[in-house]
Structures are given as C-alpha cells and as structure tokens.
C-alpha cells in the first residue's frame, strides 16, 4: 500500500482540524479501509485515526434514546447495548467475526455505507439520528445510495442516537464466506408505526420497504405480509443470488424478523 502520514488526535476538534488537510481521510476500525488501501483502491495522503477520541467511545442512555459513540467497536455494542436495545446488540454481535468486532466501529460502518453492511439497516429502521462534528442528520436523509452518505468533506460521524423500539429484530441471510448480508432485514416497532429497513439487496444500498411498514403497522404479524410482493427491479444480482432471489429473501426475512420480534 502507498505510504501516508498518520495522525491520532484525542478530541473531535483536533480531528476536524486534521481532516481539513488536503488528501486527509478518516480511519476508524480500518476493517474495510485497510484492505481497500492494500488493494490501492484508496491512497489517502493523511490518515486520521478516530480511535483515540474518548468522547466518541461508549454506549449510554440519554436524550432521544441510546447514544453510541461512533468509534465504539461492534464487540462493545454487542455487550453494552444488550440491556437497552437487544436487537441492535445482536446485530453488532453478528458482524464479521470476533477479531473484526474488536476493531470495526459503528461510525466506520455507516460512513462507508456498504450496500451489504449490517448497521445501516438498524440506523434506518430505528429512525436514528446521525450526529457529526457539524450537525445532526436524520437517518432518512443520511443514506444516499451505494457507498454514498450525506457526509460532506471534512465531516465525520461522532455518535448515533437510537430511539428505543417496543420490539425489534434483525435477521441476516449470511453470505457464508464474507459474513456480510446476502440480504438482511431490520424490523422495529414504535408507538407511531413500524419501520422496515433492508440491506444487502438494493442496488442503491439500504432502503425502507414502505408497503411492509404500512401492513405491519396495522397488524404486526408475518401474515400481514402475505399479499405483498417485492419488485426484483432495483435488486442486486450477482453470482451469489439473482435479483428475483433477493426480492424473495426480502419478504421471507421480513416475516422472520417480525416473528422474532414478537
């Protein structure tokens, strides 16, 4: 990989300053970025590690729900979010493998917005708020397509705030080699309705299945989905599964998630 200058600030303000430099790129857990740099698909001139910033670490209840620092590793979320938001903790505990979960972070995952990553589905299904060094962004405005987010140059995620649902579940159909989601569905039930977010299936990345949300808001059971179909148009097709296969998975996994959420 190409060499770079390495910076490890200890506050959000210092990180913002370092990221203002030409060619600077934020590094969180690095579980995607480092392999990408090895392949020379990314070659930042300056890498700014966000893992030494205490104010971006940890899980706690606060205004608006569960606050998770953007640099909190998946393994910590799996453990510490369990009492507050078990479906989110279970999702974090199923990402990659234990060594990936020791390093990979929620902020890194949603900043990258891989179309098959797990976390974007939880953020979107929970109607979470993405907090950056500059502003707060609603989940519905944050995800903007394949590897694309509302983040601007020099902007980085500092925390995510999750409203706590009355019940929720994430069901992932594993791509067994990569352990990314071949398709994954996060269902979250709130007092004002149900939200369903799908990852791994859409050509444009994570999306809400609004027909299912409407049906489930009236009747929160897998039966409520029986009359619905998912249009394969716009679904990912690759050697692991056709668009029609993924469209079917969306419906099947949504049903399973509703049943699991209870």
């Amino acid at each position, binding site marked *: 990989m190409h060499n770079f200058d*390495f910076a490890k600030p200890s506050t959000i303000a210092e990180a913002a300053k370092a990221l203002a430099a030409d060619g600077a790129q934020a590094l969180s857990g*690095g579980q995607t970025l480092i392999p990408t740099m090895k392949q020379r698909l990314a070659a930042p001139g300056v890498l700014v590690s966000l893992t030494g910033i205490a104010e971006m670490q940890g899980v706690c209840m606060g205004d608006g729900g569960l606050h998770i620092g953007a640099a909190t590793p998946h393994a910590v979320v799996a453990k510490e979010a369990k009492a507050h938001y078990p479906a989110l903790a279970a999702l974090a505990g199923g990402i990659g493998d234990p060594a990936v979960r020791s390093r990979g972070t929620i902020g890194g995952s949603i900043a990258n917005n891989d179309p098959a990553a797990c976390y974007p589905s939880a953020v979107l299904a929970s109607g979470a708020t993405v907090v950056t060094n500059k502003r707060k962004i609603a989940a519905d405005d944050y995800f903007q397509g394949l590897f694309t987010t509302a983040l601007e140059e020099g902007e980085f995620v500092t925390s995510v705030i999750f409203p706590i649902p009355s019940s929720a579940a994430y069901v992932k159909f594993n791509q067994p080699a990569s352990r990314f989601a071949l398709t994954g569905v996060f269902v979250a039930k709130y007092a004002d309705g149900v939200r369903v977010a799908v990852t791994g299936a859409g050509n444009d990345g994570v999306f809400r299945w609004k027909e299912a949300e409407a049906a489930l808001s009236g009747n929160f059971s897998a039966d409520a989905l029986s009359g619905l179909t998912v249009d394969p148009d716009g679904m990912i097709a690759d050697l692991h599964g056709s668009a029609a296969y993924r469209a079917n998975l969306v419906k099947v996994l949504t049903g399973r998630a509703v049943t699991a959420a209870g």
Partner: protein
Amino acid sequence: MTKVSMTVNGKAVSGEVEGRTLLSSFLREGLGLTGTHVGCDTSQCGACVVHVDGKPVKSCTVFAADVAGASVKTIEGMANADGSLSVLQQAFQDHHGLQCGFCTPGMVMSSAALLAENPKPTEHEVRHHLEGNICRCTGYHNIVKAVMAASGQDVSAVAAE
C-alpha cells in the same frame, strides 16, 4: 518514520515505523516475533490474530502506529513462565488440533480470547467464535475438541469424524 512504543508479551518495546506499517509487520520484521503468521494478508484467514489490550485482532489489519501504547500478546507469550505449554496449547497437542500448523497461532490466540470471556463455551459457541480463523487442512473438529478440552469439559461426545 515515527517511533512507536508498546508492551509486547509483558516487555516494553519500541521501534521506527512508517504510517503504513501493519502490526503484523512490526511484530515479525521489527521485533523478530515470527510466531504470528500472515496467511492471506486480506483480513480473512485469522492466522495473524494477536491480543491488543486483551481483545483478539487481526494484526494484518491494524496499523502499528494506531496501537502505540497498547499491551499486545502474541503466541510467543502464551507458554507458561517455565517454558512449558499452557493448558490451551497442550490441549491442541493432545487432541491433534493442528496438522500443518500454519493457522495454529491464530487459532490459539482466538481461542484464548474466547475462554477468557466464556470459560465454559458450548461446541456451538466455539465454532461460532472461530468463524474468522481458517484452517487450510480443514482440521476443525480436533481444534474445537482441543478448545473444549482446555476449558475442562468432557470432549468424548464432540464430533470426531
């Protein structure tokens, strides 16, 4: 080049690294600790797993500079003080938990991290925990058996085919 310092297997160490120097390179080339193996260099095989502040990480997917100040444990730090094998290492030997041995350092470090968190894991938990460690000899049954045995459990019923 910048100077990094950390604790490796209980000893304070330091060395000059570039930004791009991976922890695996620092351990192997900088410190001569070649017990940590680099199998795939693409974050998939787990042969390079070491502990950083007690947590298992793929040392080929962490920059040395990013873990400056940390406490790192490698396979060289796993034996007992008198040089005899630790319970886990001995269990790998007793249950033939290795064939070519290339994946073994990562298997041992991942398994040790599991047992530290979960001293009596079920067979399913061992298999789930070792998902990120690939054995090219496909010797998984005996690896699982060794980990179960090291945790003090009866392994006569663990899959052996």
